[in-house]
């Protein structure tokens, strides 16, 4: 049942990727994080239902001995693990600052730009403001009269990561 659950999870993750790519063509940028979350929850539910219903003798030549709960856990674990590998790759393409610098340089004549063109107050603002607005959209910050303040959710998130920074002695970072 471990293998059967993993196969079910793998199939549902494939469906998730296809639907996520499709959703990028349909939904506006501001809603994409929410859509991503909805799609992965749907994939997890699909994997759960499949694991609950798939017959024991699904794979020819393979006699399954396990309890169905093993298939359920295996399916959910497979979807979750694939998702946590997929998400960083997606966000590198969407919002990585380092990736953005490389793309900008590659697009320039002879692959070269003055340092001021790559790093200037205008560039900084174009990076920082959308990030702050993205956090407003996800409920971590609120914006009023051009001033950003943390919401209770944002405060809890910040507190958690400040604790990790202290635990791992990482310094302010960023």
């Amino acid at each position, binding site marked *: 049942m*471990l*293998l059967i659950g993993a196969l079910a999870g793998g199939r549902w993750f494939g469906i998730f990727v296809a639907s996520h*790519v499709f959703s990028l063509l349909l939904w506006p*940028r501001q809603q994409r994080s929410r859509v991503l979350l909805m799609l992965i929850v749907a994939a997890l539910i699909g994997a759960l239902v499949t694991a609950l219903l798939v017959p024991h003798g699904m794979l020819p030549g393979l006699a399954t*001995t*396990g*309890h169905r709960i*093993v298939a359920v856990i295996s399916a959910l*674990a497979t979807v979750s*693990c*694939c998702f*946590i*590998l997929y998400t960083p790759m997606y966000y590198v*393409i*969407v*919002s990585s*600052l*380092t*990736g953005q*610098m*490389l*793309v900008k*340089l*590659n*697009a320039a004549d002879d692959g*070269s*730009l*003055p*340092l001021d063109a*790559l*790093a200037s107050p205008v*560039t*900084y*603002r174009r*990076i*920082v403001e*959308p990030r*702050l607005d*993205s*956090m407003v959209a996800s409920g971590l910050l609120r914006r*009023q009269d051009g*001033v*950003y*303040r*943390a919401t209770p959710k*944002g*405060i809890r*998130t*910040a*507190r958690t*990561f*400040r604790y*990790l*920074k202290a*635990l*791992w*002695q990482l310094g*302010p*970072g*960023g």
Partner: protein
Amino acid sequence: MKAIILAGMAGVGYLGVMTLTLRLLPVKERALRLLQIWLVSVPLLGLAYWLTPPDLGFLPAELQDDPPWFGLVFCLGLWVAGFFGGLLQLYNLTERGLSLRLLIDVTEAGEAGLPVEEAMTGYSDGRGIAWMFGKRLDWLVAAGLVRVDGGRVTIAPSARRTARRITWLRGVLRLGEWT
């Protein structure tokens, strides 16, 4: 279930080793050191799976990995995902996440909050957003992806393919402006 239990134990054990390493050793290239520790853990986990009984001394027959050969594959697969998608990402986010650092800065400003200009100048305990940019650029130079010469930044030939792939993917996915 043995696969999941052993992979989970590997994760907890690694987290302990990772925390001790970061706290006790003066590590310069932290991410590289974390990867090296993980590479050592992989054969250890495989050995642990091979040497331990299928029931781990307490699992009933219907909860054991089946087929048995897939248990080891699944266990190592979980550990790969758990490290690259979980622990390493958590470390990277905590150490250098741009949005996270902005969130912490805004939180520390309290009810007064921060307008964009102050968020940029006060970024990361007052270091400023230009410092962050310089850090990213230094990393690109150290990785051999760009070079800086006479006030100009030039992409290395080896980095062009990566840049083209990202550009193509962004076009296919209609991602528009960077965020």
